[in-house]
Structures are given as C-alpha cells and as structure tokens.
C-alpha cells in the first residue's frame, strides 16, 4: 500500500494532537499505579536477614507515606530469587516487561544485585539495592538508574579493618568465601589495613556455602596473626566464631567479621560472639526513632530488623518522596530528585545519593556485648564509634564508576 502525501500529513497531525492528550490522561504515573517489586530471598540463606522482613519493611514505608502518591495507588509485589542470578534476571525481565513494575527494591545477594541492576538500566526503571552490598555496584557496575542503600563491602571492611588495626591489631589473616563478595570484601579490608599500617599474613578461600571451618581456623591459628578477618556471609561468620572458641583461638586472637547481621547474633548467642567488633549501618536500639520503628517491625516479625530490612524501608520511602517531588514516576526524573533530596528518616540523617549510586550515610562501629552486659531481649551491641559517611565509604575521587566526572 502506498500512502498518499495527504493521508500522511493528516496522520502526522493527528499524532501531534493525540500525543499530548494521551500524556495528560495516563497522568504522570505510568499505568495509573506505582508498583514496587521487592525481590529477595524468601526461604534460603538470606531469608532471615532480608526476605519476608524486607517485604514487611517496604509495606511499612508505603503505609507511612500514606498509601498513595500523586493521587495514584502504590502496589507492592514480592518475588523469591533464591539468590540465583539467572532466576533474578528472569524475574526482573518479567516484572519490568509484563507486570509494569516501576522500581525493584532489596535484591539480596551480590551477584543477583549486579545482574538485576544491568537489566533495570536497559529498561529505564529503577533498582534500589539494600541486601546486595557489593562495592562493585557503585564502581564497575554502577548505573544512573540504581542506588546502593544500606552497606557495601568497602564500608564494612574499611570501618572494621582500619579501626582494629589502629587499636593495635596490626597483623591479619583472612578466611574468605571464594566468590565475588568475599573477594571484594577481603581486598577492600586489606587496602584499609595496609593504609593504617598493618599487614595481612595470609588468606584462605573456601567454597560457598561451608559449615565447617576448623581446617581454616587451624591455618589462621598457625599464622600467629593478631586478628582473623572473616570475609564471609553473616551466617558463615557466626558459625566460624563459634568454632574458633572451640579450638581455643579466641580470645588470644581476635575474630573480626566483616559482615554480621543481628539475626545471626541472635541465633549464635552473645556467649560465643561477645567482644566481636564489626561495622553496621543500623542498630535498632540506637535512638528513640530507631527503637520506635523497630518495635513496630518486631510486633509482626517477632525479631528485630537487620540493616538490610531497615534500608529497604528507607529506600522505598525516599523513592516515594522523590516521585512526589518529581511529579512523575519516569525513572530519570525520579532518580534526579532522589539525588537532590537529602535522605532523612530513622535510618539515615542527611544521607546523600551520590552520582555513582551510593547512598552516603553514617556507619557504626559496633561491639557485641557480653551476656552480663545485656539487660533485656535483643540488647546485643554497644556503639564504639560513629563513622561519618565520608570516612566510611569510598571517596568519589577513587571511584571506578564511569559516571563520576573526575576533576
């Protein structure tokens, strides 16, 4: 069929008239609903630290925001990615292509987060990572449509590594899990330790997941290092510390988990973990605001929230604020607002979303209390030091993210 010049002109004009009308009708919110997908591990190894608790946190954020944004309803869907990158990728595609999800939150797990962030960027939506704290997310794998909210391997390793080295723990041995998470954690810690004047005597990498660490502990013991750094998942670190006590390694050598979730402390117990020093971005009992929110969470889940779950609340709430401020849910405009507005809630004070996608906020150096020091249920940690965001996280000048303009 050949189109005559006249029909073509009419068609083009019709399109010109129709397009703006359509835009006002569908309003500024695509599909008439803001849909938040909480992608997490619902029954596997991360299901206590993220999982259903992350979904609850997202729901609480929507509730506190009022349930509607720009007069449109907010809907939450959740999915179990089983911490498998292939399942996570397929779910992300389905959510974004068919189910009109606007933003994906949590994304527990390093590899899953890295996989999902790339897909979200291609589809021009937003990914808010809370439980996938790999520093690669804001370096090699950074995008302008994603944010890493709660923690990253750099901040955890840097906070713990530097402080313990400065306190005299200047020789280290690492027990690291043999995956991208363990490697970046251990390398980030090593850099911090060396910068603070310490040295690393050795590293042993074990397969994931492992439950018996006695062989690695004997190697760490033989090294004579003052501190044994644990670049492992939180649950592995918990069991590892328990076994270290068995072999008479602690208290002669200090155990330094790079990542320790409060759910793990609860499970392993203060008797075993007491004295361990680590870095966190959230502790429920830090001030009145954190206590108030955490008690609401506890009412439902019967356990206190982890930093991942608190971070999901914060990121979802901030996202909704940004949608409101931008007057649309178009990803680019919302991301610009998310960067412009400071993050202010119980999780972060004057937090700032940087151009590399890192949400800059304070971190806390914590120590596990002894059973005698603990006075009530879940009274587990004492705050050793507030590490200001600028010191805790990797400075922009060292960023390997292509989006960062170097001066």
């Amino acid at each position, binding site marked *: 069929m050949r189109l005559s010049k006249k029909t073509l002109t009419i068609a083009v004009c019709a399109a010109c008239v129709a397009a703006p009308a359509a835009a006002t009708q569908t309003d500024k919110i695509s599909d008439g609903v803001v849909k938040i997908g909480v992608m997490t591990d619902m*029954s*596997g*190894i*991360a*299901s*206590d*630290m993220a*999982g259903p608790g992350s979904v609850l946190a997202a729901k609480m954020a929507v509730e506190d925001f009022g349930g509607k944004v720009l007069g449109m309803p907010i809907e939450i869907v959740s999915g179990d990615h089983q911490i498998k990158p292939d399942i996570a990728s397929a779910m992300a595609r389905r959510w974004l292509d068919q189910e009109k999800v606007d933003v994906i939150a949590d994304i527990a797990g390093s590899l899953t987060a890295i996989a999902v962030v790339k897909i979200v960027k291609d589809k021009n939506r937003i990914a808010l990572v809370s439980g996938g704290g790999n520093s690669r997310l804001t370096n090699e794998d950074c995008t302008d449509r994603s944010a890493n909210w709660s923690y990253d391997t750099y901040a955890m390793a840097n906070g713990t590594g530097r402080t313990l080295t400065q306190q005299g723990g200047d020789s280290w041995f690492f027990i690291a899990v*043999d995956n991208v998470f363990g490697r970046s954690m251990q390398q980030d810690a090593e850099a911090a330790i060396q910068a603070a004047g310490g040295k690393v005597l050795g590293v*042993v*990498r*074990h*397969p994931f*997941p*492992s*439950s*018996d660490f*006695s*062989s*690695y502990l*004997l*190697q760490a013991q*033989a090294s004579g290092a003052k501190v044994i750094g644990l670049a492992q998942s939180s*649950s592995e670190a*918990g*069991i590892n510390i*328990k*076994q270290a006590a*068995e*072999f*008479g390694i602690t208290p002669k050598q200090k155990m330094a988990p790079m990542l320790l979730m409060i*759910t*793990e402390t*609860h*499970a*392993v*117990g203060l*008797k*075993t973990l007491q004295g361990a020093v680590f870095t966190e971005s959230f502790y429920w009992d830090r001030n009145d605001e954190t206590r108030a929110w955490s008690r609401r969470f506890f009412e439902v889940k019967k*356990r206190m929230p982890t930093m991942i779950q608190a971070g999901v609340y914060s990121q979802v709430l901030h996202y909704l604020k940004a949608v409101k401020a931008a007057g649309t849910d178009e990803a680019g405009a919302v991301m610009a607002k998310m960067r412009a507005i400071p993050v202010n809630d119980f999780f972060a004070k004057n937090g700032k979303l940087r151009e590399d996608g890192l949400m800059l906020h304070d971190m806390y150096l914590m120590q596990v209390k002894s059973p005698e020091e603990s006075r009530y249920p879940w009274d587990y940690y004492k705050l050793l030091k507030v590490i200001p965001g600028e010191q805790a996280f990797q400075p922009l000048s060292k960023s390997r993210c292509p989006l960062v303009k170097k001066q």
Partner: protein
Amino acid sequence: MFEWLGITPQGLYGQLLVGLINGSFYATLSLGLAVIFGLLNIVNFTHGAQYMMGAFVAWMGLTYFGINYWWSLILAPLVVGVVGIILELTLLRRLYQMDHLYGLLLTFGLALIIEGGFRQAFGISGERYEIPEALTGATNLGFMYLPNYRAWVIAASLVVCFLAWFVIERTKLGAYLRAGTENPKLLQAFGVNVPVLVTLTYGFGAALAGFAGVLAAPIFQVNPVMGSNLLIVVFAVVVIGGLGSIMGSILTGLGLGLIEGLTKVFYPEGSSVVIFVIMAIILLIRPAGLFGKEK
C-alpha cells in the same frame, strides 16, 4: 620433611585430625544410608532431613523440656527412628516392588517437605545448642588444641559404627537381616517376620542419622538446611565405598574426611569438589565402588 609443602608437621597432624572428625560424621551418616540401601534397596534421600531432625529434637528437648545432651543422645535417635518407622509403614512399604527411582523420588520429596516445614517454623538462621559442660574446653596435644567435644565426636562415631557393623555382620539378628535381603520368601518360610525386620531396619538407619544430628548440634548451628548441605557429600561417600557395603561406607567416610581435610590446606577452593572428582574416578575404575560387589 614437610617444608616443601609449606606446612609444618604439627600443622599437618592438626589438619589430619580435623579431617578425621569430619570423616566420622561422613562415616556415621553413610553407614545409615548403606544399611537402608543394602537391606531395603531404598535410596534414602530423607537421610539429611533425619539428621537435621535429630539435631532439632535435641534442641527442642533442651529448650522446652530441659532434657540434657546425654539423654538427647538416646532420645533423639529414638524419636527420629520412630518417625522413620511411621514413614516406612505408611509410604515406603508400597514401593519395594517398584523401580529404585520411585523410592528416591518419594524420599527426596519427603526431605523437601520436612525441611520446608522446619524452615517455616524456625527460620533459616537456626538455633544454638551449647556444648555440654563436661566436654567444653580443649586438650593440648602438642601439635594442636583438640577441642574435647571433637574428640568425643570421633570416639562416639567410631563406637557406634563398630557396633552397627558388628550387629549386622556378626550376630544372628544381622544374619536374618542379610538373609532377608537375599531371599525374603525363603526367610519367611523359616518363620521370620520379614516385614517387621525391614521396618525396624529403616528405623535403625534413620536413628543413626538422628544420632549424627545430635553429635553435630553443638558444632554447627541447628539449622533446617544442615542436612541438605551434607547429604550430597554423604551420597558420594556411599557410592565410592560401594552401595550397600557396611564396612566400605565406614572406611570410605573416614578416608574421604582425611582427603577433604588435606584439600582444605593445599587447595581450599577445591575442597567442595574433591570428593566428587574422586567419585568420578572410582566409578570409572571400579563401577561397583571400592568395597562393593558386582552383581
């Protein structure tokens, strides 16, 4: 003499001992599997869940009823054994005439259901179980600090393994059991109640898994997935030892614990695959396993 390996002799002895500890877990678990397979021809994939249940029964006993570790060592295997007997009577019994595959599918499905139920009830982080007072602390052996509890694990597993082997290979009851697998009809003709024998055998195999679970509880976190992490390795042990061979599974369990321990020193990244590499090689050279008989 060990300098070229980059490890001191003391270090090596310590590592071998640690390997032996893991080996005793493998031995106890694979023994239960071998008993069940040898006498019932069922590939018992519920074994990992039964091991986990043993640990949980011990934990529940302590938490809810104040039952201490020593009583749990007897009670938990009994409970797990009874649950096993119920499974055998209600479900497994129907599958003896069918292909192995059906038994495998049933027990695998049951394992998933049991583990899912525990995960729903207790969460993934699991529960802690303290080492009993009498076995806390460690003994200085000169080359390493051996935690007393781990020494107990080796001793207890070896004794249980030996007893099981003795009962099956050297007593009249064991002779009945073995005869029952060879020719159940003939044995029945002699007036032996074979179905009861088979039920009790399954219960015994499950109880062995429960026993290993109680032994493991103070070392690892009592956790709904503790069994599934271990089960595949234990199956590899049974295959290497020779399906159904009692002594084979005990010796292979201990031996592979040692080999895995050494891998953790010299090439830790490979420690999770070394057993499977060995399994592949053994299957190529001796398809019936190290101690198995070709049928």
